[in-house]
């Protein structure tokens, strides 16, 4: 909403200075976006200095000037004036400027092979004088310190631009703003002067509002003005329209706009001679078409509120008029419409047809239904004053009565909500200043809400009005109490924060990427999940919700590789989506690692990242989060986007149904399709939703501390097993032989090749044996040794390597 201070003062008698009014507007909740001169075409002309002038290489009479226009860059301008010399102060017009003399719009152009950015202007081109021989010469005494500044003074009045919240349609008119300011003590609201207008004859075009279902129009008031001479608006009106940066069109259009901006009362003027017999306000029929004032043809659905005559649709009520009945300079007789349209209906129609007009914006927020007559009065009076013509009686068709809403308000509610007290008579004054009728009844106030305030519907709205006008600075600051009834984080949230920092501590950079992704990349990772399309994506490559955490991670891995980084460790913790149902999402950590370990390191040999790097990070993270590694179980099943032979899944317990994590090398085909060029890409995922509570809590008492001082012995074994045999199984077999004696098992070598049969491998392990009761003697050791060999051989089909 834009207005000038002088326009405001048509409604507000005030001694406040501009800046006080600006502050007051902010204080009452009318947010000031800006208060400045509207830019004028003349702002394009700048004071400039020629800092160098050289002969044009291809033209004797032209020179190429380096011009300082007060910006960092010096511009080059080709100039034909004989006085274009080094050191001259003159007037510069940049590309896009319009030269006042001939309305020519400047562009960047090549003049005989040299590019010229803009132009240096003569006095005649600027319409300052007839002098056209050379470019304008400015006196250094006056202009030397003004290089880069506007040459022409901007004479426009400063414009206030307010951002009006959708609940305040009344402030879409200057009067509404003046009313708020007056209530807040910034002056007095002037009353609207009622000149008696002479009405002559009846409005003889029949108007009817049909009783259609969901009729969007409830009041249609109109009058005829016959014998008008439409013309250019008078100076005062043009200036008003121009002051808001709008273009005057014709007196009749300007007057309807003026009344709308002044009182927030939209009007529509028809050329009465173009109306076919009568006005029917009705619902549209499917397939009806009409050409609107934006010169577009609209095809209507059924149930839209249209103003029509016997020939068809004239306009969409409250949204946009039609060309068929539009007023022109030749228009002689006009029908002036002042109506009330139901916001819901306006919104529905404009959404369906995708039309956004000033009238729509206003009606959708709620126009004062009781202002129809005032609007007709003010506009018809202005039209007859400016364009002449005879005004008919007003015809008012209504299918609904609008009564002012009544609210019972107990002033104690104010203190209850705001925490401070305002005296009752002050509350009453504020409410009255806002146009609310107040009558006192015992401890309550009976309030009658003015029809221009559709936002006020219950006592809490009255509290808001009073506290807003009184000022939010009156609310006292109550220090918060420092007591806590409930834990800040629940278990799952604690786990989230812990895992996040645990993964990061292993050298990964945390990233946050969109929850949506490119369906093409998502397809690599979505497995059997359904694609979740966004109906209106921000761009075609962010068109689905991510089914996996890896789609964006791999995308950004590639981006960083392309930036020249080689060894990258990234992770994200966030949602992935199973379906479009609310809540059907998982919280997942995805981590990805590329390149080499110890690249270009002087004391360590480099190697590509491999799955045991990420397996270590994964297992360590789970251990740090309190899960018992001893009960972890690894399977070689994993989603298809991993390398089928170099990936696995982690179960917290052998008997668990769902794995809590996957790890492995990214499938080489995907790496290739994504055009990721690096030595290796490995990664892991942790599914937080599947992580059960840890069995042992930090707060629990620890187990008794037990240790053995008896001598421990170590034995090495090498078993030859099938190539696909799992080390995990071997360890499990050995450790379950005697949990008391076998303290640890370490695999120290895996060997295939010479001396080992095809399809077999040798697993070498070291077993630590220790008793907590005695030092084991040689025959005890020999016994367990034999047991280990025989058990392994019988259970796994392995052969001890001799």
């Amino acid at each position, binding site marked *: 909403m834009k207005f000038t201070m002088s326009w405001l003062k048509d409604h507000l008698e005030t001694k406040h200075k501009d800046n006080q009014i600006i502050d007051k507007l902010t204080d009452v909740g009318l947010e000031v976006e800006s208060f400045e001169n509207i830019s004028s075409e003349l702002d394009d002309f700048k004071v400039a200095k020629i800092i160098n002038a050289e002969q044009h290489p291809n033209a004797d009479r032209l020179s190429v000037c380096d011009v300082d226009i007060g910006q960092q860059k010096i511009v080059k301008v080709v100039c034909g004036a004989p006085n274009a010399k080094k050191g001259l102060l003159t007037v510069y017009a940049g590309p896009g400027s319009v030269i006042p003399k001939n309305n020519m719009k400047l562009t960047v152009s090549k003049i005989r092979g040299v590019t010229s950015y803009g132009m240096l202007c003569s006095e005649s081109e600027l319409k300052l004088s007839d002098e056209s021989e050379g470019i304008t010469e400015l006196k250094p005494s006056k202009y030397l310190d003004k290089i880069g500044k506007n040459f022409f003074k901007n004479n426009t009045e400063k414009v206030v631009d307010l951002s009006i919240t959708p609940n305040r349609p009344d402030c879409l008119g200057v009067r509404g703003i003046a009313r708020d300011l007056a209530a807040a003590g910034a002056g007095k609201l002037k009353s609207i002067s009622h000149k008696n207008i002479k009405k002559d004859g009846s409005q003889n075009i029949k108007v009817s509002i049909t009783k259609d279902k969901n009729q969007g129009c409830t009041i249609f008031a109109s009058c005829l003005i016959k014998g008008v001479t439409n013309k250019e608006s008078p100076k005062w009106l043009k200036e008003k329209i121009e002051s808001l940066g709008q273009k005057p069109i014709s007196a009749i259009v300007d007057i309807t706009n003026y009344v709308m901006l002044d009182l927030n009362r939209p009007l529509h003027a028809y050329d009465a001679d173009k109306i076919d017999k009568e006005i029917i306000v009705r619902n549209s029929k499917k397939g009806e078409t009409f050409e609107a004032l934006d010169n577009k043809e609209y095809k209507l659905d059924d149930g839209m509120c249209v103003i029509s005559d016997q020939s068809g649709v004239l306009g969409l009520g409250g949204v946009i008029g039609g060309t068929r009945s539009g007023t022109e300079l030749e228009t002689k007789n006009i029908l002036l419409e002042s109506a009330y349209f139901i916001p819901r209906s306006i*919104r529905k129609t404009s959404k369906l047809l995708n039309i956004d007009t000033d009238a729509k914006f206003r009606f959708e927020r709620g126009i004062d239904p009781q202002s129809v007559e005032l609007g007709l009065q003010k506009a018809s009076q202005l039209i007859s004053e400016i364009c002449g013509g005879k005004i008919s009686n007003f015809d008012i068709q209504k299918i609904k009565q609008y009564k002012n809403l009544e609210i019972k308000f107990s002033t104690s509610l104010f203190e209850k909500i705001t925490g401070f007290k305002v005296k009752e008579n002050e509350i009453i004054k504020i409410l009255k200043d806002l146009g609310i009728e107040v009558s006192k009844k015992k401890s309550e106030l009976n309030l009658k809400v003015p029809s221009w305030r559709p936002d006020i519907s219950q006592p809490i709205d009255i509290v808001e009005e009073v506290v807003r006008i009184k000022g939010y600075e009156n609310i006292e600051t109550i220090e918060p109490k420092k007591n806590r*009834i409930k834990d800040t984080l629940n278990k799952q949230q604690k786990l989230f924060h812990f895992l996040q920092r645990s993964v990061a501590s292993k050298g990964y950079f945390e990233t946050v990427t969109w929850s949506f992704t490119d369906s093409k990349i998502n397809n690599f990772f979505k497995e059997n999940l359904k694609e979740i399309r966004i109906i209106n994506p921000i761009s075609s490559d962010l068109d689905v919700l991510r089914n996996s955490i890896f789609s964006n991670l791999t995308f950004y891995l590639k981006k960083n590789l392309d930036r020249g980084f080689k060894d990258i460790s990234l992770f994200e913790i966030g949602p992935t989506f199973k379906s479009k149902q609310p809540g059907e999402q998982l919280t997942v950590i995805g981590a990805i690692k590329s390149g080499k370990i110890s690249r270009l390191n002087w004391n360590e040999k480099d190697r590509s990242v491999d799955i045991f790097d990420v397996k270590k990070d994964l297992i360590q993270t789970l251990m740090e989060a309190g899960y018992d590694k001893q009960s972890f179980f690894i399977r070689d099943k994993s989603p298809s986007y991993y390398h089928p032979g170099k990936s696995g899944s982690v179960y917290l317990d052998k008997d668990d149904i769902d794995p809590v994590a996957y790890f492995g090398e990214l499938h080489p085909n995907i790496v290739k399709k994504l055009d990721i060029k690096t030595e290796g890409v490995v990664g892991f995922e942790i599914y937080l939703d599947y992580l059960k509570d840890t069995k042992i809590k930090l707060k629990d008492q620890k187990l008794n501390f037990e240790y053995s001082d008896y001598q421990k012995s170590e034995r090495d074994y090498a078993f030859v097993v099938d190539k696909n045999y799992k080390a995990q199984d071997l360890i499990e077999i050995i450790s379950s032989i005697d949990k008391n004696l076998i303290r640890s098992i370490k695999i120290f070598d895996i060997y295939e090749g010479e001396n080992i049969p095809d399809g077999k491998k040798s697993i070498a392990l070291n077993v630590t044996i220790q008793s907590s009761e005695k030092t084991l003697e040689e025959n005890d050791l020999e016994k367990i040794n034999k047991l280990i060999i025989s058990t392994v051989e019988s259970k796994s089909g392995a052969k001890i390597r001799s």
Partner: protein
Amino acid sequence: MSDIKKIKDEYLNKLDNDLDTESVNQIKTELFGKNGQISNSFKTLGSLPNDERKKFASDLNSIKEELQEKINSKLQEIEIKEINSKLENEKLDVTLPEREIKQGKIHPVSQVIDEISSIFSEIGFSVEEGPDVENEHYNFTALNTPDNHPARDMHDTFYLDNNKEILLRTHTSPVQVRTMLNGKPPFKIIAPGRTYRSDSDQTHSPMFHQVEGLHIDKDINMGHLKGCLNYFIKSFFEVDKIKMRFRPSHFPFTEPSAEVDIGYELKDGKIVIGEGDKWLEILGCGMVHPNVLKNVNVNPDKYQGYAFGIGIDRLGMLKYGINDLRAFFETDYRWLNHFGFDPLDVPSNYRGLSR
């Protein structure tokens, strides 16, 4: 006797010289070998008369001990010397780089969320979360923003179905609705999380983060709201004083509503929070609308309170001097390294928000 004393003096002298292990061992043989001088002297013991024998034996023993001790210490001395000279040759260039360091980083958004949670934890708020995908009822209707209300235009919404019933939440406020529907007052929660609007330019990103706050009890008024936010902003920016301004505004789900500005000044192109005469809008808040309370089965005649919503990314930008919002989500390794936090820097009440 004089013979053995002579031997003693002679060899003690010899051992005082600069010798290597080999020469000391040579001396050892000369003295204590099979035909060594001391060994031989012991052999003479038998031929001595009884009265002399005892004394000679005693003298001889003490000389033997003295010499042995001298030899041992000499050997030790040489050993230490040899080690020292060997170490001398083992000198490394300790300025060579250490083994590879892989320092991880926490994203600024996560760090700021932890800071926020830590601050609100101290004044008794707990953290709630809700789904990113919402239905329009929780995101709008229950929050007093009915369909066909222009306030819906304030949010550019991503939809997941053509009926516009399922959407990506445009704010964290639906968590208010879910929390209140699932519990009984009082409520004192914050809800940080991802939010989405189909808007993308220098200062808008299609995804961003908000933290919702909600405090409902029997007597929570606008003064509590002011106090809570004042406390939060001061704690967050780690300053003692903050200039704050509450401006009336409008949100469908609060009444009265306010926007909060904080004072700042520009120093060397950076925003300095606290003083200065410029205002920066940082959050929206208000008293929860009675209609919202009714929608979640809380009696507005008995319970009242406030809610607020703060842009997390923006807070982070202000506190840590980050200029470009979009860079938050672009995963530039250099950016993550520059603006990220060490994982061990966990914001907490007792050790402070930041180092």
